[in-house]
Every structure is written in structure tokens, then in C-alpha cells.
């Protein structure tokens, strides 16, 4: 059983060179940076239930190519403050505050999963802030969501509603369950089965805190996986054709529990002029973690 975080390392992983905080309308957002502060900025947005330190291998590769890599923990994630409320619009505002804290000039942005979908909307809303957009499995597609019969949909909605409201009633006392590094890694591994135990155990040491009862993930215990509300996957995809800066979309070919399952043809049909889709064989949803050097090479080529 491992209890000391310093004992856990991962090949190629490097802690950020700088960490600071940005105020976003009263909420404190944790910002992590790799590379020379005077270098041109390159922003990375993580996915849902992740945190900026999941870029501990990927970000240094970009930084070592001459970039100031800036990432941040979404509200309620990592070291950012736990908020009373969480919403897509609030995440977008937090993102702009972080970007504004670095530059007002257009800069490259890479987003993974939820971060990819968020940055797609950001590029649509504030195109003057984005020079290049890189989307890593962050393009939810309508076709990847199964059709269900009406009566089944009614039943599913009833379960979803009751489950969500019951969850809300229990939030006041909610806490993340404590455990050892190995236990937390195993829990995360159930949703990230393609990632190695070694990597997941490393993530515990940078994404969880140690208290007398054990390790607990830092993420706000009131948050649940998946969204709730009227959001539809096609509302993200419909923004892709709008984008006027160079777009690179990256998909892994392997299915993954946290992946969108978006078929490449759905991306191809929505790419803006000059946009490019690259599929990487043998990688799942966390393509930048499974194949960091390949994705970094594509990203650097895209912004060169």
C-alpha cells in the first residue's frame, strides 16, 4: 500500500513550472503552467471529472517545443474552488478569465472531451481569442446516442429525474470516499480501463488529497458524471462548421466508457473549410494520454 505521494512517479510526467489562481466572478480557479513564461501561450482544456494535472505528460512535450502551456482546473475540479452551481456557461466564463489572464491575442487551444466541446463553443463565441483549435474526442454526435422507444424514454426520464433529485437532497453532507492510492486508482480505472495502473496511481497523488482517513479525490463530491438538462449532443457538433480558424480533430479508434463514440464520418461532414480529422489506431478516449507524443506532434504541426 502506497501512502506517500512522492514515491509515485510516472515516466515523462512533470509537475507544472508555475501554479497560480485566477478570480472568476468571485470563484477561485487554479491555473497550471509549463514552459518559459515569455514563450507564446498554448492553452489546454481538460475533460469532465478530470483536472489540469492529467496533462502532466502531454503538456511538457508541448512546452519543450517552445510554448508556454497554460491549463486550468474547471470549477469544482482539481485545485479550483468548489462552486455553489456548475453549468456549461459558467465553465465558459471561467475559461475566458484564465485566457484573459495570459493574453488578449489569439492563441492555440486544445481541448479534450468536455474541454474540447467547451473550447469549440468558445471559438465560436470569441473567435478573436483563438488562433488554432485542436479537438481531442470532444465532438459529441447525435448518431452515437441510441434511439429508444417513447415508453422506454418516459421510464428512463423518470429514473433520471428521481435519481437526480434524490442526489440533490443528499448533497449537504456529501464527501468523497477515502481510500488508499491503489483503491482510488482502481475506482477511476473502472471508467478509464485503457489507462495503466501506474498512470492512475500517479493521478491519485496529484488529483487527490491525503487526510487522516486516506486519499480522497479533490473533485467536488456534489458533482456527478454526465450532464442533466435539455442539452443535446448535436448542439456541440453544429458549432464545428462555424469555426473560422484552422481546426484539427483527433479521434481514437477504440471504444471507451467515457468516450463519445463519435463516428469519423460525422466529424468529416461538419468540418469547416481546411479542417482536418486524424484518427489514431489503438487509442481510446484518452488519446493524448495513451499516445502523448503522437498527439503532441499533430498539435505542433497544426500550429506551426
Amino acid at each position, binding site marked *: 500500500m502506497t501512502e506517500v505521494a512522492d514515491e509515485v512517479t510516472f515516466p515523462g510526467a512533470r509537475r507544472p513550472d508555475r501554479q497560480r489562481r485566477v478570480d*472568476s*466572478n*468571485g*470563484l477561485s480557479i487554479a491555473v497550471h503552467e509549463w514552459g518559459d513564461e515569455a514563450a507564446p501561450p498554448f492553452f489546454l482544456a481538460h475533460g469532465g471529472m478530470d483536472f489540469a494535472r492529467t496533462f502532466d505528460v502531454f503538456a511538457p512535450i508541448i512546452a519543450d517545443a517552445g510554448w508556454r502551456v497554460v491549463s486550468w482546473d474547471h*470549477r469544482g475540479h482539481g485545485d479550483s*474552488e*468548489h*462552486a*455553489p*452551481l*456548475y*453549468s456549461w*456557461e*459558467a465553465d*465558459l*466564463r*471561467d475559461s*475566458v*478569465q484564465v485566457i*484573459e489572464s495570459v493574453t488578449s491575442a489569439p492563441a492555440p487551444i486544445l481541448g479534450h472531451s468536455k474541454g474540447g466541446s467547451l473550447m469549440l*463553443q*468558445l471559438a*465560436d*463565441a*470569441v473567435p478573436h481569442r483563438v488562433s488554432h483549435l485542436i479537438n481531442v474526442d470532444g465532438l459529441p454526435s447525435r448518431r452515437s446516442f441510441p434511439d429508444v422507444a417513447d415508453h422506454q*424514454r*418516459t421510464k428512463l*426520464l*423518470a429514473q433520471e*429525474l*428521481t435519481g*437526480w*433529485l434524490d442526489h*440533490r*437532497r443528499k*448533497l*449537504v453532507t456529501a464527501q468523497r470516499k477515502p481510500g488508499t492510492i491503489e483503491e482510488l486508482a482502481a475506482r477511476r480505472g473502472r471508467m478509464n480501463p485503457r489507462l495503466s495502473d501506474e498512470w492512475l496511481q500517479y493521478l491519485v497523488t496529484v488529483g487527490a488529497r491525503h487526510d487522516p482517513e486516506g486519499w480522497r479525490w479533490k473533485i467536488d463530491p*456534489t458533482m456527478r458524471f454526465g450532464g*442533466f*438538462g*435539455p*442539452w*443535446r449532443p448535436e*448542439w456541440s457538433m453544429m*458549432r464545428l462548421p462555424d469555426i473560422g480558424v484552422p481546426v484539427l480533430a483527433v479521434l481514437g479508434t477504440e471504444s471507451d466508457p467515457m468516450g463519445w463514440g463519435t463516428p469519423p464520418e460525422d466529424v468529416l461532414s461538419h468540418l469547416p473549410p481546411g479542417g482536418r480529422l486524424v484518427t489514431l489506431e489503438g487509442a481510446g478516449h484518452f488519446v493524448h494520454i495513451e499516445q502523448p507524443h503522437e498527439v503532441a506532434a499533430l498539435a505542433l504541426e497544426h500550429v506551426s
Partner: protein
Amino acid sequence: MSSATVTLRHNKIELALHELRSGAGRSLLHLHGLGERSPQEVPAHLDAWPGPVWALDLTGHGQSDVAVGAGYFCEVLMGDVDTALAHLGSVTIFGRGLGAYVGLLTAGGRPELVRGTICFDGPGLAGGGPWPASPFIPSAVDPPPPGGTPDPWAILELTRDVRPPDYAASFARQATARSGLDVAIAVCGVNRTPWLEAVVAEPGVTECSVAEALTLFAAVD
């Protein structure tokens, strides 16, 4: 003037639930419109309700907490109302504008506790419409009024909150199918937004006056 205010907790937010009139029987729960606050006494058009009358200040409104950093959306306000239901038990809901939409969501979410919902005109009825608006990321809002509410972020975000008609209709269907009521929702206002048009078209939804709706729902178990 309200005779009592109860403070309830929904996650990190303290909510103010006001007792406008005490009494026996099922309560009528008043939900205000966007930017409004609970009335201090029972509005005249609701006076015919035979039981107690309560009013809830939604997050960012009236005496309830403001959500630091914002992030308002209607489903989380449904959680506010559900927090009130945990305190009051079964109720009939009267909602104005935003409160009408949140009342509809709650009727679909807790059909065993909501014994009729009255949707009425008021601020915030339309929300952000049936489809996502052009993308827009505001960086600041005007300072809040003295007392801190209504939170200007709440007003901004809840006027952009997307309300697809088929999504709203699915809540009306839940309310009717799972409440056991012949009529679960009464639409009493003049205005018809796209989501409200879809709700009106559902079985178990009636259009009538507020007085008729109060009589109808006062008679159900």
C-alpha cells in the same frame, strides 16, 4: 407580511421559504418570476386557496443566497423546489414566469408530491427559447442591487436557458402519467411561449382561469 420564514439548505445555498398563511390541509407553494421575490402576503388571486400558502425565494432571489460564480439553470432551481417539498410534503404549485417553468419541471420530477401545477404569466416565462442562441460569453454584469438580490447573473443566465418544447412536454407527460391526476397542469396565463404551447397540447393539461385551477386542485387528494 409573512408570519414565518424557514431557512432550508440546498447543497451550498440557503433558501428562504416563507409561510404567507398558515392553516390545515395541503399547501399552495408560490414560485416567483425571474428577478422577483416572494410576495409578503397571499396575492388576492390566490386567496381562494383553502389551505396554507407558502412562497419560496429561488437561488439568487429574495432572501435566498446568491450563487458565487453563478451557473444558474432551471433544473437546479427544480432542486430548490424539491428542497421545499422535503420540508412541506405534498403541495400544489402556483408559478409565475420562470416559476411556472420550474414548477412544470418539479411536477415532472416529483409527481407523487406535486398535486397540480398552475402555470401563470410572469417574468422569465420564455427563457432562452427553444434553441441555443448565438454564442455569447459575458464577462461582467451590473452590480447587484442593495441586499444582493436579484443576482444580475441569475437574470442574465436564466434569460438564455434553453427550453426545447419537446423537453418541456416530456415533463408534462411525466406529471400526468405518474401523478394519477386526470389534470396535472393548468395553464392560466395569456402568453404562450413555444415550450408552453407544447405543454398545452399534452393530455392532462388544461387551460382555465386561476380561480378554476385553484378549485380543481383543491379538490384532489
